[in-house]
């Protein structure tokens, strides 16, 4: 049975690849990229510095929350569709992956922090580098819910009390709702008080996991887009955006 599913998956991947190649052949050939390697053009491009395809947006996300609430589980489930049953305290891992958000390519950089130890001096340092935060608690554990307030205060302190920092409040372990201690009402109240989204997830069953990251990244994109429009850098990028959306249309027709 395992073999069969493996073969099917492989077959499907193969067909997908062929279709992609065909699609690439049909629609992408008339791009402005030179067909052959042209050292002069390459040199001039390198000299100009920021190439539109190389210049990519990186969204820096930091996972916070007390130990054992499922920060790593959420991260791994989101990135690699994986759920690890055994618990192993994190020491702070960092992952980066390419994501296509609304038809636009960008990268997501996730710092999965340690929940249990109090590395507070270093913590300030890496909170500073974060652009968006996911504040995780377990709906089975009142203490972890209470701690979210502390985490938020810490974030705000580092971010100079800028209360518009994108934060998403996440109640994890939603698959065990029947044993819940923190009521949904309470969670919603806190989210309202913070002025952010509240999402209830289950890393185990992959419920709402994508939604958490999607909401946050959109928020971050909006913030960045706003600041970019003000300084007025991004003419070439927006044209690239248009091109991409055109391609996306093709895709849906196909």
């Amino acid at each position: 049975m395992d073999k069969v599913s493996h073969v099917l998956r492989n077959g499907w991947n193969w067909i997908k690849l062929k279709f992609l190649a065909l699609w690439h052949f049909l629609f992408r050939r008339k791009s402005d990229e030179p067909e052959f390697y042209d050292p002069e053009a390459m040199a001039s491009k390198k000299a100009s510095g920021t190439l539109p395809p190389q210049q990519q947006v990186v969204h820096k996300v930091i996972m916070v929350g007390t130990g054992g609430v499922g920060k790593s589980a959420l991260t791994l489930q989101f990135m690699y569709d994986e759920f690890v049953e055994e618990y192993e305290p994190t020491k702070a891992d960092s992952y980066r992956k390419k994501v296509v958000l609304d038809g636009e390519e960008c990268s997501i950089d996730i710092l999965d922090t340690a929940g249990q130890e109090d590395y507070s001096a270093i913590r300030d340092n890496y909170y500073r580098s974060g652009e968006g935060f996911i504040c995780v608690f377990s709906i089975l554990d009142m203490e972890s819910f209470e701690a979210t307030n502390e985490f938020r205060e810490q974030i705000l302190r580092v971010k100079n009390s800028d209360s518009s920092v994108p934060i998403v409040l996440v109640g994890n372990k939603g698959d065990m709702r029947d044993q819940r201690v923190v009521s949904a009402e309470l969670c919603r109240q806190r989210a309202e008080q913070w002025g952010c989204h509240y999402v209830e997830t289950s890393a185990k069953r992959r419920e709402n996991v994508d939604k958490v990251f999607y909401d946050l990244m959109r928020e971050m994109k909006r913030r960045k887009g706003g600041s970019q429009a003000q300084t007025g850098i991004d003419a070439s990028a927006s044209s690239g955006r248009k091109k991409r959306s055109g391609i996306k249309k093709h895709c849906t027709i196909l």
Partner: protein
Amino acid sequence: MYTLSAGIWEKFFKKKDYYVVIVGLDNAGKTTFLEQTKSHFVKDYGVLNPSKITATVGLNTGNVELNNTCLHFWDLGGQESLRELWATYYDDANAMIFVVDATRSDLFPIVASQFKEVMANEIVQNIPVLVAVNKSEMEGAAAAAEVRMLLEDDNHRSDLAVLPVSALEGTNIERCVHWIVRSLASQPLYL
């Protein structure tokens, strides 16, 4: 017809080969990392005594088979004079492991500049890179997040992970290898 069916058979059942280069400063623990990896994934492997591992001249190799993939590791020497040779191995590499010694915070500026140099290579920018923060079991070791701050990877377009490991005790080694296998097969997420 034979060729076609043989091709299809190969497509589905042949093990995929990937080449992984292991780089890092001297004495970061690259060879120990490789030895530990081999002892985790190769059956009946007689591990080298870590105290007997000396500076690598040239390279060490190791093969690890996992599910349907075969990883070939190239552990390159990290001495200053040998670092120029790293670039010659990138052409065939499918993934990279960059090992950092977490206890030597005095070397961090060199690590940062070396990483920047490695990342300037166009091939490296398109392959998954794993930064193994080694010796994390020792007292006074820097956290992975701290090392993360050092690393500049603005032009990197593939996956990146920074994980604390202990090559001596073998913690997190399996996670590293699984991450490499996963990221070799991974595609961008569509949201």
